[in-house]
C-alpha cells in the first residue's frame, strides 16, 4: 500500500529537502473560511497538511489550539463536517497528503469502522491520535492500517530505546517526534537535542521523521528541518489566524492571507535547510 504520504516523502527525498508540515484546526474560525485557508496552503509551500479535529477537552494542547478548537465547535464544526472539509479540498488537490489529528472520543462515538471508511473516501491519508498509545492499538491503529490509512505515532523525549520498537511497530507514513515534554505552543527544544533524538529514532526505523511542538519562526523551522525529514508548525499558524479575526472572533478579509503569508515564510525556512544525512 502506498499512500499520498509515502509518495510525497519519496519525492522530497529525491529533491533532497525536508517537508514543511502545517497544522490548522478544521472549521476555525468557520467551515467556509477554513476550507479556503486549507486550499491556500499547498501553493504557499505546505508539503503535508495536518488538520485538527476539534475536541472540547484537548489534553495535550496549549491555549492557542484549545481556543481554535472551541472557535470551530462554536461555529458548528463536527467530525462529519471535518471529513466534508477534506472532501472539498480534494476536489482541487489530489496530491497533497492530509493527516487528521486529534483525540479518540469523537471517532469512537462516530463509530470506528464507519469513520475509517468515510475518512478514506473523503481523501484522508493518515491519522494522529494523541490519546492512543501502542497499548491501545486494537482500538483504531490496527483497523486504520487495514483500511489503508497511515497511523502516525508520536514519539517523545520520554520514549526510550526500550520502548521505541513498540511505538514504531505499527507506525506508518512518518514518525512525529514531539521535540519537548509538554503541550503544543510551548518553548522550542534546542536543535542539538532534536538532532540526537532524530538520529536515535532513525536507528530503529526507515520511516521519515518529522519534528513538531515549539517551532514558530522560519529560523527555527530551518534549524529543525536540517536535522529531520520534516518540520511541523501549528500554534504559530493558529495564532496568525486568530490575530486576523475581528473582535467577535469572525473571519475578516485578511484571514486567509495572514495564514498563507506565514506559511510561505516558514516554507522558505524549511526549504533553506539541508536535508539531514540519511
Amino acid at each position: 500500500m502506498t499512500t499520498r504520504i509515502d509518495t510525497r516523502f519519496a519525492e522530497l527525498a529525491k529533491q533532497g529537502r525536508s517537508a514543511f508540515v502545517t497544522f490548522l484546526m478544521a472549521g476555525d474560525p468557520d467551515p467556509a473560511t477554513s476550507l479556503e485557508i486549507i486550499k491556500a496552503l499547498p501553493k504557499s509551500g505546505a508539503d503535508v497538511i495536518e488538520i485538527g479535529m476539534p475536541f472540547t477537552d484537548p489534553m495535550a494542547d496549549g491555549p492557542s489550539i484549545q481556543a481554535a478548537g472551541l472557535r470551530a465547535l462554536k461555529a458548528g464544526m463536527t467530525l462529519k463536517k471535518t471529513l466534508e472539509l477534506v472532501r472539498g479540498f480534494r476536489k482541487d488537490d489530489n496530491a497533497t497528503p492530509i493527516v487528521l489529528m486529534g483525540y479518540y472520543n469523537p471517532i469512537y462515538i462516530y463509530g470506528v469502522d464507519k469513520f475509517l471508511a468515510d475518512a478514506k473516501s473523503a481523501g484522508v491519508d493518515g491519522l494522529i491520535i494523541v490519546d492512543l498509545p501502542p497499548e491501545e492499538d486494537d482500538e483504531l491503529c490496527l483497523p486504520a492500517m487495514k483500511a489503508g490509512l497511515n497511523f502516525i505515532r508520536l514519539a517523545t523525549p520520554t520514549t526510550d530505546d526500550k520502548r521505541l520498537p513498540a511505538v514504531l511497530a505499527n507506525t506508518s507514513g512518518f514518525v512525529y517526534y514531539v521535540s519537548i515534554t509538554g503541550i503544543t505552543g510551548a518553548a522550542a527544544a534546542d536543535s542539538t537535542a532534536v538532532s540526537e533524538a532524530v538520529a536515535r529514532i532513525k536507528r530503529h526505523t526507515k520511516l521519515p521523521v518529522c519534528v513538531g511542538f515549539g517551532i514558530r519562526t522560519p529560523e527555527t523551522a530551518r534549524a529543525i528541518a536540517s536535522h529531520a525529514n520534516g518540520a511541523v508548525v501549528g500554534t504559530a499558524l493558529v495564532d496568525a489566524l486568530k490575530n486576523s479575526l475581528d473582535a467577535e472572533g469572525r473571519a475578516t478579509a485578511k484571514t486567509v492571507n495572514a495564514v498563507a503569508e506565514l506559511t510561505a515564510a516558514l516554507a522558505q525556512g524549511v526549504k533553506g535547510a539541508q536535508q539531514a544525512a540519511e
Partner: protein
Amino acid sequence: MNIAKPNSYRSGPDERGHFGIFGGRFVAETLMPLILDLEKAYTAAKADPAFQAEMNGYLKNYVGRPSPLYFAERLTEHLGGAKIYLKREELNHTGSHKVNNVLGQIMLARRISKKRIIAETGAGQHGVATATLCARFGLECVVYMGAVDVERQQPNVIRMEMLGAKVVPVQSGTRTLKDAMNEALRDWVTNVHNTFYCIGTVAGPHPYPTLVRDFQSVIGNETRAQMQEIEGRLPDSLVACIGGGSNAMGLFHPFLDDPSVEIFGVEAAGHGLTQLHAASIAGGRPGVLHGNRTYLLMDADGQIQDAHSISAGLDYPGIGPEHSWLHEVGRVNYLSATDDEALAAFQLLSKLEGIIPALEPAHAIAKVMELAPKRPRDHLMVVNLSGRGDKDVPQVGDILRGKSK
C-alpha cells in the same frame, strides 16, 4: 444488555487495566512510560509489608482511623424503616475520605523519588488532603481548580494556601473539575521528569482507578469489621454518593462478592435529569476521556458536555470505569439525587444528628430518605458520610437565605 456474570466482582482489572470494556490507558505517549513505571512501583509496594505497615501507622496516628461506624438513631426514627449507620469519613484529618488515597499516593511518589506533586480538585477536599500531606512530607504542591470552583469553595482555597500549596484557578473550558483535570494533565506532560500526578478519584489511566480503589478500600474493610462487632453480621445495604466515585468504591469493593448486600451509588442529578446534571450513568454513554473509557456526558459528536451539580465535588461529566462496569453487570444500582433533594438532606442531617454533611454525601442521604422507609426495621443500611460540610456553609447559607427571602 446481556452480560455474563463474572465469578467474582473483585478480580478486575485485567493486566491492561480493563474492567469489561471500561478503563484502559488512553494517554499521550509522553506519559505512557511513567504510567508503566507507576504500575510497577505500585505492584512492588503492595507486596512490601513495610509499605503497608508505614501506611497503617499514618492512617492511625495522622488521619485518625478507624473512622467510627455510628448508629444514626434520630435519623432512623425519623425515617421509620432501616437501621441507618453512618460511616464517619468526615471525621478524618482534613475532613473527608480523600486523605486515605492521598496518603497512599504520596507514599508511592516518595518511593519513586518524585518531589513535585500536582492534583486536580473540585470541591477542594482532594486538594486540601494533597496540600496537607505535601506539607507533612516536605513536597512541592500545585493544585489545579476550576475558576468557578475557586469561587464557590473559598474556605478550601484558603486552607490549601495556608498549607503551602499553590492553587491555580483554571480558566479554560467550563472552569470546573474536568478542566482542572485537563490542566493537571497538561502540567504532568510538561513536567513529567520530576512530577507525580496525585489523582483524586477512581478514574484516569490504569493503574490509577485500581490504586485509588485499593487505598480507599480501608473504608469498606473497616465497615465490615465494625458491623460484625456491633451487629454480629454483614450490613444489608450500602449507599454512597458518586462524582468520580472514590468514596463509593472504597465502601463497596470489599462487599461486591457478598450477594446479600444491596449496593446503591448516588449520582448528582443537578437541576434534574432532563436538564443540566452530572449523572454520567443515568444520562451518559460510554466514551473516552482523561485516560479511560467510561460513561460520559456528551453530545452526538462526542464532545464532552457541561456537567452541573450544586456540589463542586460531583460536578464532573464522567465516572470511574469500574463503576461503569458494575453498572453494566448489574451488581450496583445507580440512582441520582437533585440539587434540591441534596439541600433538603443536608438540612435534615444537620438538625437531626448534629452532623453537617458536605453537599456530596448529602446526595447519598437524600436517597437514604427514600430507601430506608421502604425497608424493615432489622435492615442494616450503611451510608458513607464522605465529608464534612464546613466548606459548604457559606454557599448553603447564601442559597437558604436567598430562598427564604
